């Protein structure tokens, strides 16, 4: 039934209307790191009850400080889960799949990787095999998906590189012969060569200087528009989000606390944490000191009760300590989880889960 919106081709453009058909629907997703060392069981709730929708042909930005669970969330929606991380509950539905991502067998999963779902990981500097030429990496990753003979395959690769303003000579280079920015571009080319419907990008520009970062962002944007795919883009850098994301989700301590179109987040942040993130951005001509948030990110093995932000929140009330606020829709496309933001926000019925519950449906995406 989700496929019904696939022929909705009118949403092409940098800022699609918010009513575009969903490409990815995540519902109540929970993924915990379960460790068992020296007789002590620990669960780190890195992704705790996240629901969101990424629409067709949009770039959904996910922001938040380090260790808030951004990367874990990406791994979970990419089925790149391996112990000690395991998916505890929730569903991950892609429009191009007729069932939940975790209902796929390994062969099916392998068949959609790169063809329909590709992933630009954190630390893209080291994702290319140091003893293989770039050409061989393209063969390894893309050849089986393209269904072409060698010659037309490399013609397609060359054409793709050209579209992304890369010289064909990079194919004959070893990774160590490329600069950081070049490696990043090659990785992006590798992730987009099969024209996947969905691209997951995890801090693809973090290791680059701002000039190269600008070019790489433009390239990502260009590739995404050429293909017309959807993208989930994670970085802690709000300025990058301002440049690339259509919509923005703010994560704090494993939960989504606010979601809105990018411009609205920057113009009118509702959640106190978001407000702080936005206020921390420097503006030209500004003289005042930036206030830093007191306290440290919470320990996800033993998160605070109620709203996880309350120990650091300037607006914390009694109710914040007791019950976790639900991510509530205030206006179309605008969700927030803060009692102070609106009286509409009520305690979440699904957020609290009994710690150490016996039912653990461990689902592992990568077979090892």
């Amino acid at each position: 039934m989700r496929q019904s919106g696939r022929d909705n081709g009118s949403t092409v453009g940098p800022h699609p209307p918010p009513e575009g058909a969903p490409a990815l629907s995540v519902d109540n997703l929970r993924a915990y790191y379960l460790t068992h060392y020296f007789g002590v069981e620990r669960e780190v709730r890195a992704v705790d009850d996240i629901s969101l929708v990424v629409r067709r042909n949009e770039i959904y930005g996910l922001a938040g400080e380090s260790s808030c669970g951004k990367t874990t969330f990406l791994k979970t929606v990419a089925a790149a889960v391996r112990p000690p991380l395991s998916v505890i509950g929730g569903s991950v539905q892609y429009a191009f799949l007729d069932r939940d991502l975790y209902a796929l067998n390994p062969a099916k999963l392998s068949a959609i990787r790169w063809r329909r779902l590709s992933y630009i990981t954190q630390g893209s500097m080291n994702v290319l095999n140091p003893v293989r030429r770039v050409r061989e990496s393209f063969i390894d990753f893309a050849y089986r998906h393209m269904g072409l003979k060698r010659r037309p395959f490399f013609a397609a690769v060359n054409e793709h590189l050209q579209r992304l303003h890369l010289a064909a000579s990079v194919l004959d280079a070893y990774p160590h012969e490329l600069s950081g920015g070049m490696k990043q571009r090659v990785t992006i080319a590798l992730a987009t060569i099969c024209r996947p419907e969905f691209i997951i990008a995890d801090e693809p520009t973090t290791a680059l200087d701002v000039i190269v970062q600008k070019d790489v962002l433009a390239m990502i944007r260009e590739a995404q528009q050429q293909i017309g795919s959807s993208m989930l883009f994670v970085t802690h850098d709000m300025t990058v989000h301002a440049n690339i994301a259509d919509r923005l989700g703010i994560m704090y301590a494993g939960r989504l606390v606010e979601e809105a179109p990018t411009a609205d987040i920057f113009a009118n942040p509702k959640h106190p944490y978001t407000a702080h993130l936005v206020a921390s951005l420097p503006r030209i001509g500004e003289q005042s000191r930036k206030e830093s948030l007191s306290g440290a990110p919470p320990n996800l093995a033993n998160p605070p009760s109620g709203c996880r932000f309350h120990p650091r929140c300037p607006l914390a009330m009694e109710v914040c300590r007791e019950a976790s606020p639900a991510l509530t829709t205030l206006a179309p496309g605008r969700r927030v989880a803060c009692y102070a933001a609106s009286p509409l926000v009520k305690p979440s019925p699904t957020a609290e889960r009994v710690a150490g519950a016996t039912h653990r449906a461990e689902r592992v995406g990568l077979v090892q």
Partner: protein
Amino acid sequence: MAAYALYVLRRSGQFVLVVFVGINIAFFVTHATPIDPITAAIAAATRFSQADPQAVQLTREALRELYGLQGNLWQQYVVFWMRVARADFGPSLSAFPTPVSTLIWRALPWTFGLLSVATLISWGLGNLLGGLAGYYRRNVPLKLVGVVASGLQPIPNYVMAFIVLVLFGYVWPILPITGSSQINLPQGWTLAYFQSVFQHALLPVLSLVLVGTGAWFIGMRALVSNIVTEDYVAYAELGGVDRWRILISYVMRNALLTQVTGLALSLGLIFNGAVITEVVFGYPGLGNLLIRAVYAGDYSLVIGIASTSIIAVAFAALVIDLVLPLLDPRVRVA
């Protein structure tokens, strides 16, 4: 390409230097031995008869000249290098008058065969199994191989040689335990002779392989379990790259670089192990010859064998070093 040629040149220069220093050490160490080969030879000749002291003195002079031992140490040194330059180590003192080079040429093929077969098998098998065990961490048969390998690896070569000898020569006597072939069989290109050589080589090779495989296995398993956490392996798995392709071209291929270097470094040790194994199994190789030469105070033979093995080991290390830059594109040859 010019850079590689330069590298070959420099590495070859290093090879020459290593060989020169090694042979020098062999020369001075053997000349520091308290056993005097001339006295030993005369004692052997005059054991059962009275000898005229003047004749003994003349024999002593003649032998001294024949053995290249006239003059002081410095003069002997010069004579020695002039001979070595012509690949002539003089006559053997204990098997007089057979030239040292003849003895060495007779023994060398046996040692070379034993060593190369045992090293190839243990390096190849150890790396293959170790790579698989590091990649498929939960595979039970491979875990068992790991337990066995950890048990075998610390056993010294000589102990392993005796264990194998007792097991297959006495407890379950199915294989010949000494020599290189059946004694009454004529040497030649006959099937029977080759069968005999093969049978006689089994136990020495087995004892070397058991210990060697264990060591390579453990090294490779540790390497691979590190490499599988590298970003490029995780990424290839994420990209749905074929698992055998990942295992071979991503994991093993990167571990291979270290293991080839390890092979170059351990060649000397492998040779030492072979010496002991040859003695235990009475195998007619260089190791056996060397031990006999040492006991007989046979200077020239000891120096000859030492020099040959220095050249052989240094040459093998040279070949590996020359291959390594071709395996690893990151090694800059400049």
